[in-house]
């Protein structure tokens, strides 16, 4: 596939991810198929078969082995890419912690899919939100173009802080929908992403090791160092986005504010739901309601300062959660409550479990959800809405 420079090509979110990975020039890509991630894997292997992707692809027997292979490959000093979804991400759970602990700047796309049981194949972000404590940086994207750009920005950030990055896109809505996508040239990407040359690496000429048992004090300091690196991420992610926009004229922000000027009410959500929420905002604005949208693109680390700035002066925040943490409700709802707690004149935060299990959340429903809660007292629990 080739594109005329400057002309978009039609790509699914999955294929846009594969293009992002190809352009980043990783050297090792362990992979294992799972619906709905499989087209990422298949396009990468096709690129390789055509001689367009110079990476060691390892077709292992499980996602657990995918991540197990990713970590020492990254520690050996090469760029590493993989992709997964749902159960695959859960099977990796132990290794997600291990990767972050090893400070391995792996980039992985995760296609958000319901978590069994029961079995289902619908868009739902519980899979990745349940990994929020693993030490991975997490992005949530809305479109195929954003998916491609974010894979490249992810490497840029990961390799500066030596932490792994997960780029999350919703099953089918983003992963399988065809959209026009501008493919950046290899030269643009190469200038943006210099070769990965870590200061420490597994190398017989250097004789450095990783994983040996440590003392309590060393473990404590290691965690502190990880937190210090995480704290740098919102700024570095904003820089990475700005530098990308200077080269491509495309910027996605860390926290995007859509029609938030003078907004009394702001919807906050993640991923593909932002697209529908934009239309809902337009509709409500047309009807004279001062409603805006905050799209949270970077979820871990949570950009608390940016969220507080974006929501200062807002009366009602309506959080739409396409995930479910039993006993807790919506993960984003609880994160927002924690982030805004203690803020002077903090907005009322309404948490709505909308879209759990992939149920459709159309524009008119979102308008109805917003009208139903605006001005009402808040409750700590998230509310089930359809």
């Amino acid at each position, binding site marked *: 596939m080739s594109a005329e420079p400057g002309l978009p090509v039609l790509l699914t979110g999955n294929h846009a991810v594969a293009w992002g990975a190809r352009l980043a020039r990783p050297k090792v890509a362990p992979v294992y198929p799972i619906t709905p991630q499989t087209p990422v894997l298949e396009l990468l292997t096709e690129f390789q078969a055509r001689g367009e992707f110079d990476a060691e692809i390892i077709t292992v027997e499980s996602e657990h082995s995918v991540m197990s292979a990713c970590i020492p490959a990254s520690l050996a000093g090469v760029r590493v890419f993989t992709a997964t979804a749902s159960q695959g991400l859960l099977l990796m759970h132990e290794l997600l912690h291990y990767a972050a602990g090893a400070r391995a700047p792996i980039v992985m796309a995760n296609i958000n899919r319901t978590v069994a049981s029961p079995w289902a194949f619908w868009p739902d972000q519980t899979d990745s939100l349940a990994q929020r404590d693993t030490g991975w940086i997490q992005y949530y994207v809305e479109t195929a173009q954003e998916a491609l750009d974010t894979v490249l920005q992810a490497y840029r950030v990961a390799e500066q802080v030596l932490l792994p990055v997960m780029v999350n896109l919703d099953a089918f809505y983003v992963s399988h929908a065809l959209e026009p996508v501008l493919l950046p040239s290899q030269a643009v990407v190469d200038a943006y992403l210099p070769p990965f040359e870590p200061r420490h690496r597994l190398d017989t000429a250097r004789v450095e090791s990783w994983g*040996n048992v440590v003392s309590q004090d060393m473990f404590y300091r290691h965690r502190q160092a990880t937190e210090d690196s995480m704290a740098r991420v919102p700024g570095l992610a904003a820089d990475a986005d700005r530098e990308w926009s200077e080269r491509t004229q495309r910027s996605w922000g860390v926290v995007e504010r859509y029609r938030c000027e003078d907004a009394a009410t702001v919807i906050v959500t993640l991923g593909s739901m932002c697209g529908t929420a934009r239309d809902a905002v337009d509709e409500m604005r047309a009807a004279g309601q001062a409603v805006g949208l905050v799209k949270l693109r970077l979820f871990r680390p949570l950009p608390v300062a940016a969220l507080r700035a974006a929501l200062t002066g807002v009366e009602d925040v309506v959080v739409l959660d396409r995930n479910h943490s039993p006993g807790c409700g919506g993960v984003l709802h609880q994160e927002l409550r924690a982030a805004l707690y203690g803020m002077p004149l903090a907005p009322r935060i309404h948490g709505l479990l909308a879209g759990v299990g992939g149920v459709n959340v159309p524009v008119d429903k979102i308008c109805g959800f917003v009208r139903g809660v605006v001005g009402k007292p808040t409750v700590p629990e998230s509310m089930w809405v359809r």
Partner: protein
Amino acid sequence: MDKIELHEEPMLCAGHAACPGCVDALSVRHVLAMLGPDTMAVIPPSCMAIIAGPQPYSSLKIPVYQPTLEASAAAASGLRRALDAQGKRETTVIVLAGDGGTYDIGFQCLSSAAERNENFIYFCLDNEGYMNTGAQKSSSTPHYAWTGSTPAGKTSRKKNMTEIMAAHGVPYVATASVGHLADLKRKVMRAKAMRGTRFITLLIPCLDGWGLADDAGLTAARLAVETGAFPLYEIEDGRRYTLNADKTRPIGEYLALQRRYRHMSAEQVGALQVEIDDGWARLQRHAALDPALPA
């Protein structure tokens, strides 16, 4: 007794954390001396991970990556491919894993790596149980052996990992013992000269876990071979067999050294002897039917 002169560059340094008299440390010392400094080791949680030393120390003069317990062969695959991508194709990647990390929890990814014929040497340091956690049963624990989780003796046989690995059709599978040092060294050098997945099981008598006297590790290692409890053999390409040592003694001599077999009745010893004789006869048939090609 013959005195063996060693002229080896030590790759496993003095001061490591192994128990006094440990056969694990002794075995790895010789393996690493054969492989040399252009080697990288993947060492999952196991006695060897402890011997490798707590941060910031390392008893090994090579880089070590310690993966999770169940992931050694997958980790070695990732490491190998990264080195290949960097043009470091001559660096030898090895795994030094215990039997728990190989026969049990690490088996799935090992089978997959062998199917892909990944280019590394996997050493299973087989002490026939979870000795690092205080001697519990693994699927490598032999029939009748006492462990902390089989207090009345194990009721099933030891998994035959050597044959399972050979069934993957990998270039080289062997058993070896530091009690037969020349044979061990030859096998390490033979494996080193090949490419693809190579798998060597080293029997590691565990002084504490087996209930051996402090100076009985090597005696147990030799008797394991001489009684046929742990036959020394090689399998090339999954089918050509070579037996490397004869079975010359009854199993009772091997059992008598070890506290883990002390509860066995005479009938059980007899039954175990039959199992070992059957296994030996089967190996002889293989070796006769499908011998190694002339060198």
